[in-house]
């Protein structure tokens, strides 16, 4: 089947039931998207489907069709997306394993809510688990990214 990931079309040999997560990681070699629980409880597998955050570990690849999938590798070519720059500025990461998912969820949030409140951040981000406890800096980075977005005219 054909799927479109990060703007490129790929031909993959996969059962329709195979979760998108494992198509990305093992068939396409895009290992930035992570496995944390396999049951949509932790958010490490978060990617965008037409800009909306989905849990790739429970999304069968057969349901994707031609809709655009974006992974962490496709958010920017070099870490220059506003959210990524804010993450660096706020020194968010620790072990880093959950961070692809955190960033993808945050990027989707900020594309829909330009200036999220703490409560809106909690609601959007509480599906992303971090065992290292980076939550406070994640929140700070999202506020920072919102400010950066505002001052650069919204990109």
């Amino acid at each position, binding site marked *: 089947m054909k799927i479109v990931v990060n703007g490129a079309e790929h031909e993959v040999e996969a059962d329709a039931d195979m979760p998108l997560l494992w198509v990305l990681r093992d*068939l396409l070699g895009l290992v930035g998207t992570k*496995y944390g629980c396999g049951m949509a409880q932790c958010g490490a597998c978060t990617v965008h489907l037409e800009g909306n955050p989905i849990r790739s570990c429970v999304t069968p690849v057969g349901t994707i069709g031609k809709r655009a999938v974006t992974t962490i590798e496709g958010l920017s070519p*070099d870490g220059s997306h506003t959210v990524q720059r804010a993450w660096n500025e706020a020194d968010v*990461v620790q072990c880093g394993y959950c961070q692809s998912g955190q960033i993808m969820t945050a990027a989707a949030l900020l594309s829909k809510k330009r200036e999220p409140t703490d409560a809106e951040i909690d609601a959007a981000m509480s599906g992303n688990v971090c065992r290292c406890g980076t939550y406070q800096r994640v929140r700070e980075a999202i506020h920072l990214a919102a400010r950066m977005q505002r001052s650069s005219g919204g990109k």
Partner: protein
Amino acid sequence: MTVTRRGFIQTTGGLILAFYVPRAARAAPPPPAPAKPPAPPPNAFLRIGTDDSVTVVLAHSEMGQGIWTGLAMLIAEELECDWTKVRSEHAPANVALYASPRMPVQMTGGSSSINGEFDRYRTVGASAKDMLVRAAAARWKVTPATCRAENGVVISGTKRLRFGELADEAMKLTPPANVKLKSPKEWKLIGTKVRRLDSLEKITGAATFGIDVKIPNLRTAVIARPPSFGATLVDFDATAALRVPGVEKVVPSGTGVAVVAKHFWAAKLGRDALVVRWREPEPAFDSSKYAAELRALATKPGTIVADVGKAEEALASAKTKLEAVYELPYLAHAPMEPLNCTAKIDGDRCEIWTGTQFQSVDQQAAAQLLGTTPEKVTLHTTFLGGGFGRRANPKSDFVSEAVIVAKNAGVPVKVVWTREDDIRGGYYRPMYAHRVRVAVDASGSPTAWDHVVAGQSILAGTPFEKFAVKDGVDHSSIEGLADSPYLSKVPARRVSLHSPKTPVPVLWWRSVGNTHTAFAMESMIDELAHAAGKDPLAYRLALLADAPRPAAALRLAAEKAGWSTPPPAGHARGLAVHESFGSIVAEVAEVSVEGRRIRVHSVTCAVDCGTAVNPLGIEAQVQSSVAYGLTAALHGKLTMTSGKVDQSNFHDYPPLRMFEMPRIDVHLIASGAKMGGIGEPATAPIAPAVANAVFALTKRRLRTLPLELA
């Protein structure tokens, strides 16, 4: 007793593994002070490229705690290089070069990487700078004394040479026998807030964790594991598994059966299709029965740890006494990256890729399994997606099984654990019960204290038992209790320990013994304060009159938390202070209760770790430790019924989520004391601080973790 490194390599366990050696440890005497350690060979710890890049080689594993940056700072400070050109990498497994300065094991743990390497890594930087200067001086035919190094350049008068131009010849020179290190006043980098060096790759998804490793010809395996601890394999039927597309082989894995496939999903489906028969141990382990056994054990004294005065008599004749039993459950570490290991075998050589905290132990285990020598086992350490102690296993469980599967399958294999495998896979923080009886005088101060601890030994049955378990006492079961400054003032005191054995494998979990000793101590101290009608801060300060560092930490945390002003309506505060791994942390938690839910709004921390290398990293580790400890305080509990672990994933073993994260403020005390660690010390005080706050608010004393309002 002297033990040489070679002696350790030849026998699996010949050394003291004392991750933290406290001042007055009766159970585990400190290792003999080593003779002046040999000067570290700079070439083993850093490389300078012709492009002026400085690559720091880390003898410890980056698992989020920030040593990728912190250790590099130590070298860079003395080297006088351009910080923007510094990067880090993990050292290969090589115990001769990379053993910790504290023990002949290449390991990460005990909050010891930065303070343990403080001298060695700075010496490496200073030695390399000396060699670069000498190389430049030789080229210019001047004396080294007329040269200086600054921002990656050696300068003498108007002459300049970049490190990259000098490195080839410089690093061939004989390292200096002695170097002078900078005094703290001269530090430009150490003590400043420095952003992490590993951020970019972790932000772009480029960072390689063990689970991401790719090598040619690699297969993935998922293992059918014993369904209960001690269950043994009877037989298996691979017919259905082998029919799953992508599955290639089914082979024994040691304790279980491995399905080897082209990729993870095929291996997992293959395992689902495997039919396996197990022999279950009798009687089946039951955690609530075991909890009752621990409580029963704790009613009588165990093996004596400390016995001063006549505590039993003093308690018998005391007019006023308090008694409490504190209980803590089994805990899984649950790092975000499930365990995994890649192994490739070539004749008598083996290559391993994994995120481990225990390189030389794992290397040794692999060598023994294959009947070869550690020198023929190459172990690459990737980034760890969380360690917390789980990836430091004396039994090398996740490495050994990968080696066995690779050997049996005849192909390179990456064994991946599912989250269920991880939650159910054992090596937990043990279950504990503490029974504490305290007699008090008219003012409410303790005059007699009897403290019984019951819980399985972590180190018994490991190669480290010989040295960390003395006279039946595993030091890690009573750390933070036996050496408590509160106890040292009580004239009649007895501490004793029961160490029952169970089939459940147990392991150190972030802050180890302090996870339970801090809860018991700081809860009982709080109960005593309230019983005496005294403010919990004032009561503690009175008992800590001769312990200025914990007292100072308490005062600072209380001041910053606004202890002397009333909290908002419906909120209350609780505090706790605890020393572990050389650092002292005081925490004030402010909570409210909504129905049955305990909400922690803020945690104010005062941290005395002696000297700060990277305050930005320290703040992150304190936030990290508090969040990790708060998960245990509010949610963490594993139970076993009929031998099987009841929980399996994050839906029934819930981690702390963002909406539960309090605001955590961190205040550093520059005490100038000997540098302590920071990876673990802030974990232990949070549970008692929250329990104490809940009491202040509701007058209900919760003595069991996780804290639950019925």
